């Protein structure tokens, strides 16, 4: 079963190589390309993790203020 999972992961990696045309590059070019791709992907994930929940919460508050509009009681 572990072999099947490893084969599947290798197949996914191969698809990535084919789609981005890094299959034809020489090894040092491939390493460079992988580094850049992984860096960009990591930055996208980090930005999403840091900023998206805050923006969703603010948007939710903005829209609920328009439609609800009741002031919070301070008692």
């Amino acid at each position: 079963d572990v072999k099947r999972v490893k084969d599947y992961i290798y197949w996914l990696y191969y698809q990535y190589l084919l789609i981005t045309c890094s299959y034809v590059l020489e090894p040092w070019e491939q390493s460079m390309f992988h580094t850049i791709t992984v860096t960009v992907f990591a930055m996208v994930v980090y930005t999403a993790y840091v900023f998206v929940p805050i923006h969703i919460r603010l948007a939710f508050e903005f829209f609920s203020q328009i439609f609800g509009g009741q002031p919070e009681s301070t008692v």
Partner: protein
Amino acid sequence: QKNGVSNGTVYKKTFIEHFEQAPMYVAVLTFLGFGVGTIFGYLRDFMRAWGLEKRSVAAEREQQKDFVPLYQDFENFYTRNLYLRIRDNWNRPICSVPGPQFDLMERVTDDYNWTFRFTGRTIKNVINMGSYNYLGFAETDPNALKTVGKELQKYGTGVCSTRQEMGTLDKHVELENLVAKFLGVEDAMVFGMGFATNSMNIPALVGKGCLILSDELNHTSLVLGARLSGATIRIFKHNDMQCLEKLLRDAIIYGQPRSRRAWRKIIILVEGIYSMEGSIVRLPEIVSLKRKYKAYLYLDEAHSIGAVGPTGRGVVEYFSMSPDDVDVLMGTFTKSFGAAGGYIAGKKDLVDFLRTHSHSAVYATSMCPPVAEQIIRAMKCLMGLDGTTQGLQRVRQLGKNTRYFRRRLHEMGFIVYGNDDSPVVPLLLYMPGKIGAFARRMLDKNIGVVVVGFPATPITESRARFCVSAAHTREMLDTVLNALDELGDFLQLKYSRYSKSAHPELYEETRFEFED
């Protein structure tokens, strides 16, 4: 998708062509792949220009660096950076007859396709899906080649002269009479080379003041002949009869560009089967257009002679038309007859004119006798004049193989272009990374295929082109189809949205028998 016909009465049988478009994400990913390749191409060019990397690439000499640059255009950039990386899939030397199977010399590269070296081994019995061997006449069977051997002993190999000086042998006369009888026309003339037949005879037929209407996807030989002739060239969209009719009407209404005189001659250049698309020309509509507007028709049957039609006489017979409808019938003997050379056939006046005015007749060496004898024996076999029905059997076998192969590919879910009856089968690959992977993996499975990329096809539509042959047995085709199935799943090539069934279960009944 079925194509509707504009004149419902012109076609006597259904004309089904497929040109399916891939889903949008495929086009996006193709451009992405080419973008990555281009960026790395610029990087490598930069490194080569600044001396960070020393490779033997074509470059101008030091003294010429201030001249107009020779290697800066896109084609050279593409060749240097993209074609070179997967160059090991082309120009592979073979060392046997290109029949249904052949032997390949093994080639390895140590420096990423800049140089190759032969290991000395040969890869034996690679299934041949790339040679134009439609009827299987490329064979080494001594029985079949008996007459060819005899003519070789009698005439030798060289003719050493042009047609008009001393190069017309009795073999040529015999061959020309046979070709004329085969096609059902008055007379024919044969030339030594198929490409030269087109490029040297079109300038003899048209000149300045004439109009050439040529299909978008015509072969280079037709384009070269048209350009050499000096006539005005207008292009119509591939197999698009509305576009052709509009061009004809404009030509007749407006005449020549500045003087508004009538054109001296209007000639339509089309091919029987287009070798990159696998589509068949819409001959009945073109003939009705040409009769209405009084134009001439030049039909290049390089891939279709011998390969389509109930008895192998080409597209004219495929559409059940008479050869008198086409003014100039041209074809080559390279594809279906296992020889070399070309012919032009038509009315006797036309061929007599070409005998005196063709550039090829005046300056080019004529066909050599053993090759002429090979064509004679192949044609006699096709016509049944050698006493057997082998010729007809080969044509029928080719038709069966073609239909089977195309049907299975469509069922598996690949995008395949072209008409259902054409033996040229292009399978679309689209992404540049998959071109090299596909060809290499097929060779690992002992199947030789031809993959085609940018300059010969549009940049986003790279393809693998299969040429089905009558010499392929059902087992060979099944081997190839199974390999394609496996590879299609592994490389994700099954883009079609209209496949009938993914895996047709052939043995369902016997499976249920064992379930008690």
